């Protein structure tokens, strides 16, 4: 017997402003006369969604912004009603939807604990017993008698989470709220949730953009896109699909920015060196933006200089879209003297024999300086986005493994006494 059953759930919202009373009256008048009425455009937030969840399952719901994740949770929590289809939920739900869910800003922290307990139908005596535990977990001993409206967003999340996880609801819904808490509290929350899942057998629905956490915690993931269930299955498969999706999206978005940012140096008032173009070239000499993992690529950068440059040095690096610098190389390390570059256009080339970056989306950063005085001439980040792909490596596996491969060689020696030992050479 599934604890949550969703069948053909469709939710439509009307777009645009609320109609005025006059419009409503003229519309009903037109309807009476059988004339066409002014209809507002409909927006399908959820489109024929069906799934069922068994007791004790931990399900992650992922998808881009606007995919319908929160709408779906609102239906499970019985806050919104479906346009079509049905939602059946057996058991009580502790919804943690948005920041400070179910927390009344006018009441104090302590009163909110009672209020939420009352809403979940828990007797005052039991809440009273749990009070200390809740307050302790929320780390809000000092502020518990202060109205919640004076709390910071982190504080209200802490309170909301502590209440929702302490009050013994059958189903816990967590929607993106943990992002607000600090790392230490997030850690605590995940431990708490793991405890609820493993020891108490609670059903948990988790919505997050932190795919790594979702993948780690959930046995099953539902991937939503534009209101439709694209995938419902094992977490690694669904997360993998999601990564591919978002890699594509990030790349598309950044291609527009590229043209603008290419000539922009982050060093102001240095009009000596101008970046003209960056291109990534594959083995066949073709310009590409998708790089095969472990393939040979060349990065070509065109500059224009207005002055004579004596012994310039160049640096090239890669970083992820969230600005984690993962790779770097400097021309000074291998080429000691470039010599004099005369005013005009010139091109530098950087050859990578094996693309060691693991599948994902990266961007280039490029810098130039004079060797003598270390004077920066040019520096830019987010310059050229490219995607590394692999036909053999799964994307979600690489995410949990980091960004770069050692590129080493495995040697496994089988000894005669059948003892296995491994060592990495090279």
């Amino acid at each position, binding site marked *: 017997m599934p604890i949550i059953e969703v069948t053909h759930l469709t939710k439509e*919202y009307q777009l645009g402003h*609320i109609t005025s*009373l006059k419009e409503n009256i003229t519309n009903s008048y037109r309807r009476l006369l059988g004339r066409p009425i002014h209809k507002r455009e409909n927006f399908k937030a959820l489109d024929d969604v069906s799934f069922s969840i068994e007791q004790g399952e931990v399900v992650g719901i992922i998808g881009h912004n606007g995919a319908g994740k929160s709408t779906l949770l*609102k239906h499970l*929590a*019985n*806050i*919104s*009603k479906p346009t079509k289809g049905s939602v059946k939920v057996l058991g009580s*739900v502790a*919804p943690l*939807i*948005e920041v400070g*869910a*179910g*927390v*009344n*800003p006018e009441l104090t922290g302590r009163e909110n604990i009672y209020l*939420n307990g009352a*809403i979940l139908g828990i007797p005052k005596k039991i809440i009273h017993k749990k009070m200390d535990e809740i307050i302790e977990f929320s780390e809000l001993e000092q502020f518990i008698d202060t109205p919640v409206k004076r709390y910071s967003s982190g504080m209200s999340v802490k309170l909301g989470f502590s209440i929702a996880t302490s009050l013994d609801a059958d189903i816990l819904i967590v929607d993106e709220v943990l992002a607000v808490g600090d790392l230490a509290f997030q850690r605590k929350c995940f431990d708490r949730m793991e405890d609820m899942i493993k020891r108490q057998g609670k059903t948990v629905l988790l919505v997050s953009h932190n795919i790594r956490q979702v993948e780690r915690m959930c046995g099953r993931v539902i991937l939503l896109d534009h209101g439709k269930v694209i995938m419902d299955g094992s977490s690694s498969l669904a997360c993998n699909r999601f990564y591919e999706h978002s890699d594509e999206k990030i790349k598309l978005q950044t291609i527009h920015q590229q043209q603008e940012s290419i000539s922009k140096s982050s060093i102001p008032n240095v009009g000596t060196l101008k970046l003209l173009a960056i291109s990534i070239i594959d083995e066949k000499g073709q310009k590409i933006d998708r790089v095969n993992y472990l393939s040979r690529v060349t990065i070509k950068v065109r500059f224009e200089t207005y002055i004579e440059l004596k012994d310039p040095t160049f640096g090239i690096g890669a970083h992820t879209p969230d600005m984690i610098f993962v790779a770097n190389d400097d021309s000074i390390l291998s080429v000691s003297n470039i010599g004099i570059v005369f005013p005009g256009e010139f091109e530098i080339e950087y050859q990578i024999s094996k693309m060691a970056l693991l599948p994902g989306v990266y961007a280039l950063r490029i810098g130039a300086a004079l060797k003598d005085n270390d004077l920066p001439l040019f520096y830019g980040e987010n310059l050229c986005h490219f995607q590394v792909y692999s036909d053999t490596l799964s994307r979600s596996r690489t995410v949990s493994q980091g960004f770069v491969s050692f590129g080493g060689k495995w040697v496994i020696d089988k000894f005669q006494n059948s003892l296995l030992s491994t060592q990495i050479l090279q």
Partner: protein
Amino acid sequence: MGIDTGNIPYPILTFAALLPWVFFQESASEGVSSVTSNAALIKKIYFPREVFPITAMVTKIVELVISFGILAAMMLYYKMMPTVYSLWVPVVILYTMIVALGISFFGAAINVYYRDMSQALPVVLSLLMYGSPVMYPLSLVHKKLIEEQAAGHWSNDLYTLYTLNPLAGIIDSFQRVMLKGLPPDFEALYPGLVLTLVILPLSYLYFKRAENWFADVI
């Protein structure tokens, strides 16, 4: 004053009229805005939404109790003793609450969609106040219409129309049982009661239907 109030002093008669009236007015307007003012809760957690108008009304009972204290002091000053008919008071108050709920359910649901509702309601209510025996006693209306037939052959219908306002019966009954030591005038209560019993279920059904889109629209 020029208003015939019988043997009851005008100030206490008016105050006894204002007491149920203010309770009704406050409950209704608080009830109408109760759903929208709890938007934060409605968007995030589910429980039966009729809790909002009902609690809005229950909290008004506190104010009612204070008013009763003042009324008691006035009765003491005018040396009036409550009679056994005062036992009708809880019934009258309960009836007032039901009338206010009828307005609250409907108004609260409308107010989610058209916020102007909570703005318009005070105007409508203050107009209704002139149509209720607050500043003049019901007996005056009765005398003009029924005894003197002031409006010709329309008089009886006009009186029924007047008493269709549940507050007419409520205020009059309250004055009778508290001050005059008389049982309620059922003839004046009856048309309003019928109207209320028709409106309340409709209003409640509308509220329950509208409840489905509260969280989407609010």
